[in-house]
């Protein structure tokens, strides 16, 4: 129906001189006007700054124990109080962002690379390749991350690399599915037929012709996955499978302190929990903004 899309379907710019912004420029423009995105970005950047430079401005060494002042409630000296070893909770929360903000993004990047390659492959070849690989991916997705993590840790031992690999590989199938459906739509377009009529190889067609056109859904899925990855890293740390002591990691701190909530020492847990929540919310707001910008 030509009626409603008149403004978008306006006479295409007559000559390149009058051409408007590129699609990416347009997206950036709409992102920078989205309150959701900017709020999320602000939260995310706050934690990134903490992770990078937190150690230089925190009032105390997050690892230094001070048994005499153990478990003091929040006060002027210690804004968020101290934990059972007398470590400053505020300093630990700030610096505690470092490990999670290394592990979660790396895991997401791994998931994106693996998932994109796999999704391109099954979306492009379809047929039996798609049938087999898709069933395997579905079976894989049915297993909870925690179980996979347990098995991997038994096999490989605990380390940040294990956590990255476990989360990366368990998220890859989800990204692969998103990429697959985008590729299925894309491969029906005539430029793919035109590539075949040049005898282009499958790799060229997949990575040079199709990939640039499926970047938007990949970007959206990646930001969404980052939120889940942060949550997964915190969960694994909490369960002891993830980041190991003495790191001031949030999940780890909660895990070592949550037994004391009953004793009224709420501050040892609350601030770490809020930190996780705020980071996840920040990333999700960014993801929402990116999604909106691509689907306007």
């Amino acid at each position: 129906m030509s009626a409603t899309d008149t403004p978008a379907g306006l006479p295409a710019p007559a000559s390149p001189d009058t051409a408007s912004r590129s699609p990416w420029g347009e997206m950036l423009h709409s992102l920078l006007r989205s309150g959701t995105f900017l709020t999320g970005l602000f939260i995310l950047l706050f934690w990134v700054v903490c992770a990078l430079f937190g150690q230089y401005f925190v009032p105390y060494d997050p690892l230094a124990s001070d048994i005499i002042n153990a478990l003091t409630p929040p006060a002027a000296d210690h804004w968020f109080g101290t934990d059972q070893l007398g470590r400053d909770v505020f300093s630990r929360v700030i610096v505690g962002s470092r490990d999670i903000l290394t592990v979660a993004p790396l895991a997401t990047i791994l998931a994106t690379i693996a998932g994109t390659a796999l999704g391109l492959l099954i979306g492009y070849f379809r047929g039996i390749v798609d049938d087999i690989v898709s069933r395997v991916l579905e079976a894989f997705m049915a297993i909870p991350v925690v179980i996979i993590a347990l098995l991997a840790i038994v096999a490989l031992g605990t380390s940040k690399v294990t956590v990255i690999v476990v989360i990366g590989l368990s998220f890859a199938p989800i990204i692969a599915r998103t990429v697959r459906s985008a590729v299925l739509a894309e491969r029906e377009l005539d430029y793919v037929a035109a590539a075949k009529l040049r005898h282009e190889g499958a790799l060229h067609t997949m990575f040079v012709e199709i990939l640039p056109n499926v970047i938007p859904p990949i970007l959206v899925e990646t930001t969404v996955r980052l939120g889940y990855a942060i949550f997964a890293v915190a969960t694994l740390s909490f369960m002891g499978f993830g980041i190991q002591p003495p790191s001031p990691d949030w999940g780890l701190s909660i895990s070592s302190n949550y037994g004391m909530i009953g004793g009224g020492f709420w501050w040892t847990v609350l601030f770490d929990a809020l930190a996780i929540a705020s980071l996840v919310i920040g990333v999700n707001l960014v993801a929402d903004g990116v999604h909106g910008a691509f689907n306007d």
Partner: protein
Amino acid sequence: MTDKNALELKDLSVAYRVGRRNRAVLRNVNLTIKAGEAYGLVGESGCGKSTVALSVVRYLPRNGSITGGSIALDGQDVMKLDSEALRRARADSVSMVYQDPGKALNPSLRIGRQLTEIFELAGITGQAATDKATAMLNRVRISDPVSVMQRYPHQLSGGMQQRVAIAMALANDPSMLILDEPTTGLDATVEAEVLDLIGQLRRELSASILFISHNLAVVSNMCDRVGVLYAGMLVEEGSTKDVFNDPRHPYTVALLRCLPRGGQRKDQGRLDTIPGFLPGIGATIVGCAFADRCALATERCRAEPPPLYDLGDGRLSRCHYHDNAQSLPRATPADVPAAQPKQAPPVLQVEGLNKTYGSHGHPLRAVKDVSVSLRPGETLGLVGESGSGKTTFARLLLGLVAPDDGGSIELEGKKLAPRLASRSEDQVKAVQIVFQNPDSALNRSHSIRHILSRALKRLGGLSGRTLDTRLEELVRSVRLTDRHLAVKPRQLSGGLKQRVAIARAFAGDPRIVVCDEPTSALDVSVQAAILNLLADLQSRQDVSYIFISHDLGVVRYLSDKIAVLYLGRIMEFGPSEAVFSGPHHPYTEALLSAVPKLDRTESSRIRLDGEIPSAANPPTGCVFHTRCPRKIGAICETQEPQLTEAQPGHTIRCHIPYAELARLQAPKITAAEPA
């Protein structure tokens, strides 16, 4: 007819807000439609036709606003209505029919439900509403309304859907009916059917009609008066006959010249085009909006905006030199190089080509026993309704789809492998295609330079300096310039994009180029330029075309031979002139009679009933017998006719002998072909 005006636009101006600026789309449009009158609005895309329709019902998109003037429907000022009164006006007095009926109908509601809903709004419920709905469907000539009411939109053909949409629009007995390109997406045969229906309804109803179309011939057949819109301004208005026979604005003159008319062929001269481009929306227009593209323009035109001159007899023209408009010189020279005598051995020889798809266990024969041959420098036109196998045949040639075993495709005497992957590099580059939709055919992530360089590298086997030199030549041969190379496809207009697609197909000096509806998405002036380009490239490079189009005028202009396809079978094959001038197969006859003609001559009115049968379950005997207007009897139902040679090189698949066809069609042919 009464004196009351059904619709009156006074100085209507509309703007769209794009990038924080209001951009004018309509500029002081004055337009009056009398009660019972059919008014046609024509112009190229981007001229503001649809915006007029949307403004009338105040249904502009969110960024659109009416910046001046007034709209009166039945004497009622639409601008002053509050939301409830506006709703009532929309419900009671004005209806719209859109281009794509598939999108206008709700896919998850049965037709009956959607129709009765309208009567329920008017307070009629239950059986009474159902009865009224049935009556409405009868009115739009749907023969089995009860069963149609039970169906969902996707179970109806495009023509049936559009009838239902028209029935819905007429349900409230509107005084104003707005038709926005109502037949644009339909096959010519279905278009003819829908136009006939609208014509008949006009006589039965009192409704005034605003008919919007880019197709001048359709408007000339449907409307009493016509207005030509250019850059959001009415540039010419008058009775349909006057405007099309005696245009007084250079834009109208040029628009009419772009159409291949009266059986014009490529060796009789090139089509005229309109140079330059439509001013972008919101562009500041100093003098006459058309001055930049008008060969008659003088200093006065560039400085002083022409008023809408009243020429008497209800004729208006926005041109300072309206008396001379028809002396507009041609934008393209008419002369063409003399046609080469074509005695060379065939470049393409197809024998007994078949393609069967498996469809739920039933074989679906998309292409059946097709044999054609084509010489270098010739064009084979493929015509037929959608579903006749044109595109499948093209894909078989290209190797994108593998044919059934048995048939053969020979290129310059050498057999082509059925699959693209097993063809040699030389064979691959020899058969290329220009797709219908350049947006889909050009990778939107790549620059034009990348797209063409890659084609030259893979198809031309070039690299480095030689590639750059050849790239420059290639770009110039399709009349693009260097500055087009740096941009992405979306920054080019439809016509420029199609030029890039043509350049890509020509990168490896092909022997055969398949053109699959290459101009159907383009405006007429752009279409003319693309057809000229294709004709030029052909006469220079001796390339052969397989040209697919639903527009028979376009096919006729470019083709030397025609194959008429129906359900995957060739019904008629022969030299273009023989096929078009007849005697021809009854199906060809019906296709030709369905084409709306600009000169309003009433052609032999052969209309095909119903739709093309399913290829999974084709009729017995002659596959066309279910719709054939000249069916002779039982033999048509039981025995499939052979393609028999009527004249040397001209074959027809029909039981009726050639001499008898000639007798049957003779009087009508003279009426249909005044050329």
